[in-house]
């Protein structure tokens, strides 16, 4: 995994609460055996009509969404299934961070393992972000800080180990494999 230290980007805003993984990547696109190429299917049923034409009113189809790497969403983003295809689709599309007042557990875990930064903020910060689409934000992993264009900086929660993995580009499997002796000892006594 590439190290993730800092991100500066404008935002795309999707204010709906409870955006579930079936919206992020509909199940019919899960019959894949690789991780790549899912960005084209991201939010497929909101992004395209029944004939596959882009819906002009959907936020990702508007020109100002080009190049935005931060998604700001309503409460409880990523609820639903465990499909890692959801963060794969978001990162393949180009997103590197998701900001909400609440992010569903499994989606959050999956995101951290794919270099997609889950950022949980207080309602007041979220309200400001939802009201100011396209704002340029700065996210710093080392200081766990989100800085608004107003200069206001807020800290966001990020567990120390996850922070370390992001900053160093370390993957957790290496860490677990290094615990092989402990695991064998556990198996011997269990």
């Amino acid at each position, binding site marked *: 995994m590439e190290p993730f230290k800092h991100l500066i980007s404008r935002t795309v805003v999707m204010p709906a609460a409870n955006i579930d993984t*079936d919206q992020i990547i509909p199940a019919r696109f899960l019959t894949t055996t690789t991780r790549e190429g899912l960005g084209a299917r991201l939010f497929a049923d909101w992004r395209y009509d029944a004939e596959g034409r882009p819906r002009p009113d959907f936020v990702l189809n508007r020109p100002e969404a080009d190049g935005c790497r931060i998604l700001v969403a309503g409460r*409880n983003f990523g609820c*639903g299934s465990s499909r890692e295809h959801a963060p794969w689709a978001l990162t393949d599309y180009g997103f590197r961070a998701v900001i909400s007042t609440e992010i569903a*557990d499994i989606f959050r875990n999956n995101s951290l393992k794919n270099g997609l930064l889950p950022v949980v903020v207080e309602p007041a910060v979220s309200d400001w972000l939802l009201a100011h689409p396209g704002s340029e934000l700065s996210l710093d992993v080392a200081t766990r800080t989100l800085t608004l264009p107003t200069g206001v900086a807020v800290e966001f929660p990020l567990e120390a180990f996850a922070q370390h993995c992001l900053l160093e580009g370390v993957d957790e499997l290496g860490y677990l494999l290094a615990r092989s002796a*402990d695991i064998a000892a556990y198996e011997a006594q269990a």
Partner: protein
Amino acid sequence: MSASSGTRAGARTLFEKVWDSHIVSPQSASAPAVLYVDLHLIHEVTSPQAFQVLRERGLPVRRPDRTLATMDHSTPTRAAATLGGTPVAIDSAARQVATLEKNCAEFGVELLSMSHAQRGIVHVIGPELGLSQPGQTIVCGDSHTSTHGAVGALAFGIGTTEVGHVFATQCLLQRRPRSLSIEVKGRLRPGVTAKDLILAIIGRIGVDGGTGHVIEYRGEAIRALGMEERMTVCNMSIEAGARAGMIAPDEVTYEYLAGRARAPHGVDWQRALERWRQLPSDPGARFDREVHLDAAQIEPMITYGTNPGMVIPISAQIPERPGDPAFQRALDYMGLSPGQPLKDQKVNVVFLGSCTNARLSDLRGAAALLRGRRIARGLTMLVVPGSQEVKRQAETEGLDRIFTEAGAEWRESGCSMCIGMNGDLVPRGEYSVSTSNRNFEGRQGAGARTLLASPLTAAACAVTGRVTDPRELLNT
């Protein structure tokens, strides 16, 4: 008994006991705990990329003896397709199924393949085989792994990267979740089922009410549930955002597991029983949060919106939330209006199936209501047993004939119309009363409108072609 009455030092919850006994190394400020996994269930959709990681890094599956594969999500449910020449009609799904076969052969993992007599939905076969046991840690790349918590296991869904971690190390890195006690007093009334209970719980605490928590369901109403009903309750824990749902093992659990193919036998069974009897939460054990419900107050429940928390008693009206655009958007998708009753809403499709409600007791309940009746003209009803074993048992009891004589389709086991990956889809704009677990937009097909309900309610709706309180048909 209320969990808050006199918390006691050293008293532990069911969850804490299972968690503590699986710690390879404890969590610290700088690192999560290394948690050992007793049982790893896999399927075709969330495993291919994890096997690929093993291949790239030259790693074996550490404990193939603790790993079992089945195919369920993208598999067909028509007998001709299942048992005939080309098993999977959709090319990409066929590739996924073939990939699982190849991966299991290469890494020495046991696979219940398409023609296997024990194949079925992963969360149905685990308990059915006696593999899912009290006190275990169980994971699967599927959020409804919470189902297995019904036997007193700590069972939760994981992503594909974590599937790879478990393959390679039999462990996961985990921060300890918080605990939530949901205590249900009283008894469910006739015609009100475990599905109605869990829908009422989700309606009460919300689709994010359990986020960051492991739920323990407790109280008289939970103790009175059969094993399969407990699975229905735990299954939808994730629909409240919870990591897992658990129910303490008791005589119901032991009776269910005794004699099952892969449950312990003989002396091992006696030893296991001794261990399992230590698992229930100690008197005075402390939970981080507590919620209380009265089972007697619960009606048959049905959803009206696009998440499982948008749920009402079947005779109630859809709430009004002026000034809430997300609420209005959900109702627009559903083609419904605030304030309208859902009762008598026209229904096009009824789906009886899924890891929530496709076990034998679910099929028996629906069949009892359908016996001697016909489904409404123009309505499609799919009955998809949870496993091939459930299918066989149902056929032995003649349930299949009750369904087909009523005009329903009787299929092979699989996830089918719950997730719509295999071509079993609800047409755009049509209303489906479904015994599954998610009513998200497009879940059962692009533009499909899903109303989640119990098997009894689904059967009643199938008979009338309209949203119907099953008690009206049960009483006649």
